[in-house]
């Protein structure tokens, strides 16, 4: 069954003007919606699609696409990494190795930031194109404590890149466990994800020996699956931390193969939730993207 979901970023042409003490005032008369779409044929990305190959509806109203681009917009990657106690030892070593591999594969124009969480959440590195501080921050990671994955995802979503129009903001989450210490519930995070323009990819470590040794049944987190769906991304499972390097590589390759659809909504109301559907004509493929976007 085809999965039709839409990733969208609502960017305001004249920007929402909000001061620290004001209620939001939206001045935009022309909004541009950017939809980050993956088209796969089995395990292979479908390349070479043009605007005419896509059919997009916004709240059921067909929209004219302004542009379709593939792999031409730099990535703005927010790495959100679980460093809770269950990652201690070789699992952390494998994680650091995997993320280092991903960092090395980034292009010069791509940027990245690093957030870590166990119980506390820390922005270890602000967005940068410089790889050296990123590698240094990764090298210094330690694993301890419980898991505030809900609060971490939520806070990461708030730190969206300021230049979203010039880059593709992506949240790449790695976690191996369920939440044990957040204030926010999972449904809070899903709601925040709907309101965020960030594409959300998840790499989840499941069936790890650590969990088995503690009598915890190892199975994928349904929440993380919903998170990836809502964020228009994908989820990859690792059965061993040794697989992480390969999976992070797959995640990056998938990001490179996504289309960015851009349109100016017409014939739809301005505010609220917009249900977006993308289908293909003249081509075959499974589409993965965000199911809609929230405008206010």
């Amino acid at each position, binding site marked *: 069954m085809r999965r039709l979901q839409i990733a969208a970023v609502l960017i305001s042409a004249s920007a*929402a003007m*909000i001061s*620290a003490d004001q*209620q*939001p005032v939206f001045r935009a008369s022309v909004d541009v919606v950017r939809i980050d779409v993956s088209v796969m044929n089995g395990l292979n990305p479908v390349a070479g699609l043009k605007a005419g190959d896509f059919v997009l509806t916004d709240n059921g109203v067909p929209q004219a696409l302004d542009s379709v681009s593939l792999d031409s917009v730099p990535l703005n990657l927010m790495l959100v990494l679980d460093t809770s*106690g269950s990652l201690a030892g070789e699992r952390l070593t494998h994680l650091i190795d995997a993320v280092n591999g991903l960092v090395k594969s980034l292009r010069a124009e791509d940027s990245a930031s690093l*957030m870590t969480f166990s*119980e*506390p*959440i*820390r*922005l270890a590195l*602000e967005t940068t194109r410089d790889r050296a501080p990123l590698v240094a921050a990764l090298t210094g990671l330690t694993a*301890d*404590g*419980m898991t*505030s994955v809900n*609060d971490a995802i*939520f*806070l990461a979503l*708030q*730190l*969206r890149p300021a230049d979203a129009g010039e880059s593709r903001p992506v949240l790449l989450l790695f976690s191996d466990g*369920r939440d*044990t*210490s*957040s*204030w*926010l*519930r*999972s*449904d*809070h995070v*899903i*709601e*925040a994800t709907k*309101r965020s323009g960030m594409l959300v990819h998840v790499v989840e470590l499941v069936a790890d020996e650590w969990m088995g040794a503690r009598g915890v*049944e190892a*199975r994928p*987190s*349904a*929440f993380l699956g*919903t998170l990836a769906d809502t964020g228009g991304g994908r989820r990859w499972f690792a059965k061993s931390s040794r697989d992480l390097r390969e999976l992070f590589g797959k995640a990056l390759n998938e990001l490179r193969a996504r289309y960015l659809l851009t349109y100016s909504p017409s014939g739809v109301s301005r505010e609220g939730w917009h249900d977006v559907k993308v289908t293909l004509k003249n081509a075959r493929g499974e589409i993965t993207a965000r199911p809609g976007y929230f405008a*206010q």
Partner: protein
Amino acid sequence: MRMRTVAIVLASVPTLLAQPDRSVVEIYRQAVAAYLESGDAATSARPLASLRPDQLEPAVKAVLTRADPRELESAADLQLEIGITVAGLSVSGTGAYFDQGSRLVTAILPPPAISKGLSAVRMEEIALISSIWHRVAASTFLSINDLTGARRLIQRAGRVASESAAVFTLVGTAHEIDAGLNDLDHWDPASAKPGRTMMRASLLLRAEEAYRSALESDPGYVLAVIRLGRVQSLQKNAKAARESLERGATLAREPRHLFLAAMFMGALQESLNDLTGARQSYERALSIVPQSQDAVAALAFAELMSGRINRAEKVARDYTSARRDDAWWLHKTGAFDFEGLQWLRQHLRQ
């Protein structure tokens, strides 16, 4: 700041592992004496930095054998300070330090044959030290959601002061946190085990009963008033919850109590779709405890849901970018008993 310093010291001082037990006994004795003299846990504990709790055991036994009440109290408090310091870094380490400290503080009360000669005032004082010590240790575990460790220590506190409003309140807090961990998460069927909803309701009821017992014991015990309001809020009894939380906020004097009253009121308002009220409450909480991750997450979410996305981002960025030196876990949930720790420190200095 002090506690974080201890943590750094614990991780960085060169090893003393090669030293024989006799040296450990002497090093420990000097550290305890230094703590008694200065009250500075960070400096006093520095020589113990690379010694694991099991390596301290001979030294702890030596203090128990000498049975000097002042040394026992000082050693117990030092164990408590170290345990608190490492709580967010190593739960098992904290448990071991606390177990040793618990034996030390319990030993302040001498065997019955000797304690017959003690005055009633002194007996009461010893019981108070032990009760507060165990309460602070239990609250440390509650602040990092370790219910097993917390309940064991609450039980010990209850042996000394079974009718204490503070102990009843800790019992209720453990049930309340347990109920939170059993919250049915409809996004994750893995957590939707049969009976989990009933389990949560039962835990909330037990928490409510514990808080009511605390208030029977001491009608003005403000923490029980506030936590009762929280449980009533989780039970969807908004009217009663508001009354309790407003009363708690009025009675509160300690920053931690004011913080909790504000956080729980914010959550109640949010559940009633009063986002403006919720934002104001969370802002108040954050102004009292700026290090609280819970308050940051709560406020940023309320800002987002109010459409104030730039404010949500600022709150999130200010917190996640900050470099903090202290033991962050003591501020996270508001469960840590700062007042009790302060009382123990002052008592030792008297």
